[in-house]
Every structure is written in C-alpha cells, then in structure tokens.
C-alpha cells in the first residue's frame, strides 16, 4: 500500500520570462525525512521553493501537500496550510525584537495562541530564548539564522523548506544549524533543504537531488557523501 507523501512535486515547471528555471521536477518528501536539493547557482533551487510557496506561478505541473494541490494559493495561505519557509538571507525583522519575530511565526498557525510552540523553539535554540527581548538586528549572523528557523517552527508546520541556511556562516555555526535540522527531522517534520554545501547536505539528507539548469540530474543517498568524484561530476554534468 502506498501512502500519500506529505509534500509532492509533480512535473513542476517554472519560467521567468524566457528563462526556463525549473523543468519537469518531480520529488517527494515524507514525514521525518530530509530531502536535499543541491546544485550550482541558477540551477533552479530557489525557484522551486518560491513556486511551492506561491511566490512565483508555476507554468506546469503540480505541488501537493498531503495530496491537495497548493497551486494558485497566495503565499500566506500556503504558509497557513502548513508549509514554512526559512528564506535565503534569513529575512528576519531587524527592527523588531527576537520575541516579536517569533510571534510573527505564529501567524502561520491560523489559530491564535502558541506559547507551547514558542517553548518548543526555545528548547531547540536556547540562544533565541536568551536574547528574546533584544532587537533581532543586534544578533550575530548565526543567531539570526537560528531565529529564522525557530520562527518557521513556531508555526507548527508539516513541511519545512530551507533556502541555503548555512550561507555566510562559520563552520561551527553550520554544525549548529545542521544538528538542529537533524533534531527537527526526529520531531517528524518533512524537510526540503536547498543548499550549496553539497557534501554536508548529502551526508545529512535521506536523499539528495542534484539540480542543474532546472533539471533533476541525479539522486544521491547519504553513502555518496564520501564519494567526492560522483559529487563533482554531478555538479558539472
């Protein structure tokens, strides 16, 4: 018996004018899974996430959450349906406090209260709790990234999308972020991770899809993480 995956892309096509950003991409992410999406700049990774969130309209194909299509919905409705995005560059609200940033994450829950959700996020990222009354802009890059992930989690999503969460972080902080993803996976979320750090992503993810020119070239399991030759050739195919 096959069950419906939490998130399913089915022949997704995204065009930016004449540019064909994503071509016929199909993949699934299930509960407790991390699926990596790697590839060079301009491969269509971010476009894929934007299409899922309804920020760009898809030219063809479908995006389904528990079998129900998300296409044509506004970004806020996709968020409220249970898909949370940690956007590229974190996009935290620098002028608001850390706690206010987290409370904004509650907007994705639909129903008002969420102190329990805030606690869950604080457990995962103690530093966010420590600095909760500070202005978010005063946090370091790594702390801001933790805040961005915590903010996505308080919405209690079923799917977590991350757009290059390790970008611009020191190696030690990359460890913090990847460890957190591991723990979030154990909480039963479906995670779609877009990354430039191919090797670490392949090692962490249950499977990783290599995207190039908008097309899925190759799917790798965690065992391929040590095989740099395969990785490099996948990137430049």
């Amino acid at each position, binding site marked *: 018996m096959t069950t419906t995956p939490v998130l399913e892309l089915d022949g997704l096509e995204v065009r930016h004018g004449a540019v064909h950003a994503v071509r016929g991409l199909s993949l699934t992410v299930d509960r407790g899974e991390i699926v990596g999406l790697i590839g060079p700049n301009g491969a269509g990774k971010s476009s894929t996430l934007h299409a899922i969130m309804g920020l760009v309209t898809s030219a063809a194909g479908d995006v389904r959450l528990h079998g129900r299509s998300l296409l044509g919905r506004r970004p806020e409705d996709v968020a409220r349906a249970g898909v949370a995005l940690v*956007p590229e560059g974190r996009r935290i609200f620098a002028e608001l406090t850390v706690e206010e940033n987290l409370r904004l994450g509650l*907007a994705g829950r639909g129903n008002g209260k969420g102190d329990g959700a805030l606690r869950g996020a604080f457990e995962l990222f103690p530093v966010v709790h420590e600095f909760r009354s500070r202005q978010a802009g005063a946090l370091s890059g790594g702390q801001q990234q933790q805040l961005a992930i915590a903010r996505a989690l308080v919405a209690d999503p079923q799917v977590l999308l991350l757009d290059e969460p390790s970008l611009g972080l020191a190696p030690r902080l990359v460890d913090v972020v990847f460890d957190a993803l591991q723990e979030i996976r154990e909480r039963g979320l479906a995670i779609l991770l877009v990354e430039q750090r191919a090797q670490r992503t392949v090692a962490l993810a249950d499977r990783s899809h290599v995207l190039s020119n908008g097309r899925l070239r190759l799917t790798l399991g965690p065992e391929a993480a040590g095989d740099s030759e395969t990785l490099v050739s996948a990137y430049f195919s």
Partner: protein
Amino acid sequence: MTFVATVLGADWQTLADAFGLGGIYALMAVGIGLVFGVLRLVNFAYGQLVMAGAYALAFAYERGWPVWVGIILCFAVVVTLAVAMDWVVFRPLRGHSPAVMLVATFAVAFLMQSIALLWFGPLGKIAASLSALNQPWTISGVDIRKISIVATAVAAGCLLALVLLLGRTRVGLHMRAAALDFQTARLLGVRANRVIGSAVLVSGLLAATVAVMLTVQSPLVTPDFALRDTILVLAGVVLGGMNRLISATLGGFAIGFASGFLGGALPTNQSQYLPSFLFAAVILVLLIRPRGLFARAGQQAVERV
C-alpha cells in the same frame, strides 16, 4: 512654557492653537503614513475623506440632528469611503507601479471633489454643531479656546491608542512587520488583505476624527475643505521621513505647529505668505536631509508587495 511664549513673543492662545493644529496634522500624518507603510502608496485623496466627513457633519447640522448623530454619520461615511477606495481602486492596482497608484489617488481626489461640487454646490455648507468649542476656557487668568485643548487631548489619545494597537496586538505586530518587509510577512502567514484592510480602516477612523476637529475651527464646508491641510501634512510627512510612522507623525505635528504658530503670530499681511515659507523650508530640508528630518540614517527603502 511661559519662557517659550515670551521668547517667541506669542501669547498662550497662539501656542495652544498651534498645539491643537499640530495634533490634528499629526493624526492626518498617521493616517497617511499607516497606508503608506503597508501599501507604499501616498494617498492624495486622504483630504477628500476628511472633506466627505465634514459634509456629513454639515448634512446632520442642517437637519438639526443631535451632535452625536452627526459624528456617527461622519465616521460611517468616512470609513465606508476609505474601505470602498481600497476595494475599488487600490486593490485592483496593487501589483502596479507606484506611479500608477499615485496618479490613481489623484484621480480619486478630483472625482470626490467634483462629486461634492455637484451635490452640494460651490458655496459650501455649514457644520457648526460643535462651534461652542470655540468659546474660551479661562485657566489661571489666560483665555484658551476649548477646541485647542480638545484637539490636543484627542490627538494624544488617538496616538496613544495607536501605539497600543501597534505595539500590543497581533494585528498591530502584523502591520509593523508588513510595513518593514511585506513579502516575508506574507511568507510567515500574515494575511495581506487583512493587514491592508486594518490600515485603511484605522486611517479612515483618523480622517473622521480630523473632520470633526477641523469643522470646529472652520465650519464652512466647501469642496476644497481640508485640501490645503492635506498638502501641508504631506509636506510635513515628507519632511519628517515617510518610511517610519513615528517620523511621519512628528513631521505632521511640526508643520501643523509651525503653521498654527506663525499663522497666529504674524500679522495678516505677512501670514498670507506662510505656505510659501513652509514649502521653502520643506525644500531646504529635503536638499539637506533627503530621508527626512527624523528618519534614521542608513535605513533602506523596502520593497512594495
């Protein structure tokens, strides 16, 4: 206070008037700034909302209805028009360039003015149900018109309520976030239509409040009622800095205060040049501090939805 009054060579009444007008202009600045915050749209038709409210008050006064009925009618008319403006004009144009939306608000402004001209004629109507507020209160030997104190108090009350709304409530937090980065706010699940609708609603409530205050000071309601005030407030908002509600409000207050103060302190043959001087000052400030007097340095303009 006495010191200030002596130094400026003005009497208490002039100062109180200046505070009153500053407060009213600050409310208009907030009304314009709130909508600008979430829509990146300068609503030139804001003054016509005030004008419509003033006509509602005149309508009620002509029929001899009680004051409170007139005020309720004023609020109902202004809020309905504000929401209708959002639905009919702003919403369909939301994806368009700021220039298109700006021109659209001009069109709405002229349309509303023309409708007022057709319906009520060029001579104007009287809205004098609250004119008793022009009587003075004598406070320790000094005569001060009641409306100056009432306007200052109402403005302070409204601003306090707004601070609480923005700072303490969920919808207030969503409005602040939307003003900072609308796209990210939407990605978190903040509903664009609700946030914009709330901003439009609050700006309408403020316009109605302003209409009540302004008709006390100038009970003759004509199609260009509040037009000059709106232009001054817009100048003040730009002067203060459009990007932040607080700086826009301060700018509105500053220009209202300056306008009220100079208008009262200068003899009539000089005060007729007042707007020219105020606008010259605005141009000067913009040349020196293009982001506005009260804006923070290094702040970036944010993307529209």
